[in-house]
């Protein structure tokens, strides 16, 4: 054998149902239930993709099925996080990475807006203090 790349490897995908793996079908079905609950009772929910026994093919299939929507947000806190709404309104694909770029959590959130994007009440007060302090340094404000 001259090179490792010459060894033929073929991975058989898991048994498919309707063009996608059984796991993908189950998640899509669960998403319908969660979206209905969000619409009817305003209840947000999330699916932790790392807790499910999904192959790489399954995950890629699910990503294809859900597609890309209009909103993309980047969160820069202890590493970058990508928060994207899928083509299904109310279904968000959230990827959290650490400072080294390693994926540390991958979720599908069913919500109007992922909670991590929203500003907390105590942070609003911090914002007021910050702006007042900045304004105090402003030449016009100091003159008054």
């Amino acid at each position, binding site marked *: 054998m001259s090179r490792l790349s010459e060894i033929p490897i073929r991975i058989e995908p898991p048994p498919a149902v309707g063009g996608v793996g059984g796991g993908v079908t189950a998640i899509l079905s669960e998403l319908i239930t969660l979206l209905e609950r969000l619409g009817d009772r305003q209840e947000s929910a999330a699916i932790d993709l790392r807790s499910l026994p999904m192959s790489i093919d399954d995950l890629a299939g699910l990503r294809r099925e859900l597609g890309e929507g209009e909103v993309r947000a980047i969160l820069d*806190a202890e590493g970058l996080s990508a928060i994207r709404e899928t083509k299904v309104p109310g279904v968000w694909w959230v990827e959290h990475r650490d400072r080294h770029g390693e*994926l540390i959590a991958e979720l599908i959130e069913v919500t109007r807006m992922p909670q991590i994007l929203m500003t907390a009440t105590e942070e609003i007060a911090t914002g007021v203090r910050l702006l007042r302090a900045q304004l105090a340094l402003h030449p016009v404000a100091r003159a008054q």
Partner: protein
Amino acid sequence: MPRSDLEMTVGDMLRQHGISRRGFIKFCTAAASAMALPPSVGVAMAEQLIHARRPSVLYLSFQECTGCLESLTRSFAPTIENLIFNVISLDYDDTLMAAAGEAAESARMQAMQDNFGKYVLIVDGSVPTGAGGAYCTAGGRSAVETLREAAKGAAAIVCVGTCSAFGGIPFADPNPTEAWPVMAIVGDKPIINVSGCPPIPEVITGTLLQFVTTGKVPDLDEHRRPKVFFGNTIHDRCYRRPFYDQGKFAKSFDDEGARNGWCLYELGCKGPTTYNACATVKWNGGTSFPIESGHGCIGCSEPGFWDKGSFYAAQSTALWGKAGESSPREVLELSASAVAVGGVIGVASAGASRLRQHRSAQDADQRDSNGDN
């Protein structure tokens, strides 16, 4: 006046290190994911932890290979540095700490005194009791003596790795050092076993984080392992499970079935009887786990895994004691005494036949290695 380390909450530490609320929610979301908790728990965990005091943690290493600590230092979520700097106060670990000798030992004694009844004791390695405990000593004291002393003031003991949880390799037959797991020596403290050889890093840090968050010992299985990580078998959550259900098995590591990613049961995979989170949490930051890399599970998080026969014999064979070492007669006697049912004889005969094949193969290998024709 600045607050002492003992008085500081997790929130204080976060502010000191310039970590934002969103950054901490993210940390907790990742930790909840690693702990197989519902994703919504991440936010609640962050809110609770911010007000919690950082517990003192002592890490004792006994008869072990340091593989567990090597594993722990490779935790991605939560990272060990995040855990050490923000959530816990690691007051003693003779491998990681800069101090050595008298200074290290006095740091341990001080931490035990200051936090008596409240500290978390992590134990790595089995405890040898042979020759008066002389097989493992540090600072002139035996492991068993140090363990008994440190256990007295512990709020809980976390046994990291199969050696401290179940005895592991030192405990394997013939156990020359008379090694024992921690729970055989300490009987009056809550013990959490985080088994594995080594355990998954996120399972170690996740167990610690859960204890710090709730202040309680998590729900444990019959082997005192946290159910959130050890509640399912590898087989239950394996992505190759559909092939098992369809009867598609690899027969050797390089056949068509192996290339197609079929089930490794017949190649000795112990996934069906092994409880651990490898198939979901995975290793190296969620990259993969042994079965995903083409090797069966060896069952390293189960008690006595080292004495359960070949890693490469199908489970039905390996469960008959030590494959290749017991004679067919011994196997028959074992099976007859274990299950007094007539029908089992047929199964035992099949097992004996496999053992004969195995032994013949071993004999042939031995002849080859001796250069016999």
